[in-house]
């Protein structure tokens, strides 16, 4: 690390002006959103964010927003949303403890303080990162490396089967054109419904959808079967014939005969 004047420039140039009271009131453009503004205000209170007064911070913020309105400065919506939220938080905090609503306003205040701490931590970390000796700015790699060369010799590869297949393809193209409807290996929704409703009768308890799928089919068909069976399960559930349960996203999907 070194004492480098351009580092300060670097930070100051892009950083909003120091939050002295007057400038804070007027310059709204310098802030990257309400959290950024709150953090700057919090730092005028105490260096240690753990010890700031959230109530005082809320007042400070609301006052700022008020003044901005008086001066007809157009405020972005998120500043107003934050102001509304803070106003609510403040009123809840001022209520006697037993009358405080849920969620607990102290809890919300603490969470706000934790957010500010985290943002500040990352801001400091970024500054420290950029104060390091950086390659191409403070330290330099070799200016004119010879470079390492890899001479690639291509080794062509193909086997007889591929050759046959290719010729087969050419010959097939030359055959008199016969229109064939390609038989795609799919399971239709109708047959999936039929199949699933037949099988669900056998299953007594919650059963993984996967257990209803045939095990030994080619992968292309398997995807189709899975998709069709899933849609079939939705359809059967809609018509009240089965129940579906899933613990969480991407967890196995369980089916059982509707309990009625």
């Amino acid at each position, binding site marked *: 690390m070194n004492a480098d004047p351009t580092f300060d420039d670097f930070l100051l140039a*892009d950083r909003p002006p120091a939050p002295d009271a007057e400038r804070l009131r007027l310059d709204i453009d310098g802030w990257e959103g309400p959290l950024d503004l709150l953090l700057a205000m919090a730092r005028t209170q105490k260096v240690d964010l753990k010890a700031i007064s959230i109530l005082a911070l809320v007042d400070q913020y609301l006052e700022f927003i008020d003044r901005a309105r008086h001066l007809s400065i157009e405020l972005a919506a998120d500043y107003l949303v934050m102001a509304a939220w803070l106003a609510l938080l403040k009123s809840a905090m001022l209520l006697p403890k037993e009358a405080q609503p849920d969620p607990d306003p102290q809890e919300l205040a603490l969470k706000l303080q934790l957010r500010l701490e*985290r943002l500040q931590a990352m*801001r400091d970390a970024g500054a420290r990162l950029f104060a390091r000796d950086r390659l191409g700015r403070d330290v*330099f790699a070799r200016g004119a*490396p010879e*470079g*390492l060369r890899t001479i690639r010799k291509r080794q062509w590869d193909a086997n007889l089967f591929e050759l046959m297949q290719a010729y087969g393809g050419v010959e097939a193209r030359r055959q008199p054109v016969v229109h064939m409807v390609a038989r795609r290996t799919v399971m239709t929704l109708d047959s999936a419904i039929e199949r699933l409703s037949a099988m669900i009768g056998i299953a007594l308890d919650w059963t993984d959808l996967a257990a209803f799928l045939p095990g030994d089919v080619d992968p292309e068909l398997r995807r189709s079967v899975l998709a069709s069976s899933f849609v079939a399960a939705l359809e059967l559930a809609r018509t009240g014939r089965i129940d579906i349960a899933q613990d969480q996203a991407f967890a196995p999907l369980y089916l059982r005969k509707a309990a009625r």
Partner: protein
Amino acid sequence: MSQPVPDFERGVEAAVFASSEPLTVADIIAHVGEGDVRGALDMIAQRHAGTGIELVERGGRWHFQTPGDLAHLLRRTREEPRRLSRAALEVLAIIAYHEPVSRAEIEAIRGVQTAKGTLDVLMEAGWIRPAGRRDVPGRPLIYKTTPDFLTHFGLESRRDLPGIDDLRAAGLLEPVDVAFDALELEPAEDSD
């Protein structure tokens, strides 16, 4: 020279010196053949210590560079690499200290939406890259830093990120909710 440098070590040195980018041990072996590459790298690094050229390791890749204390001699002729916006700096720090993270997680920390250009700039600089998707609904893309990031900032590994141990110990790398739950366990009540 006090004593002759072994041929293998000379080969390793020449390969790293000639390369236009940092080399892994595997890269070096591909050029000079099997051998004690790490041992040779150590010897080379020692031999250059305190001179105008140093051998450094960054994320498992080795390259030569000028020492930081000579920056004042070399910097003036070069234009400053592009400056990053404050937003980009913050986003980069968040990715580096939390990786892998999704855009939503970055935004949760910063409290603002991330302009599309911010991640692009960092990717263009070669400092971050997409690293798969998070297995949650929506399957958001997650980002992490690259080896070039370590190279640029002179870090041997992510463990060298300034203050990362302190931040972790203070719980500052955990999401607010996790940190909050941890605080709940403490009897103390902070209010004013």
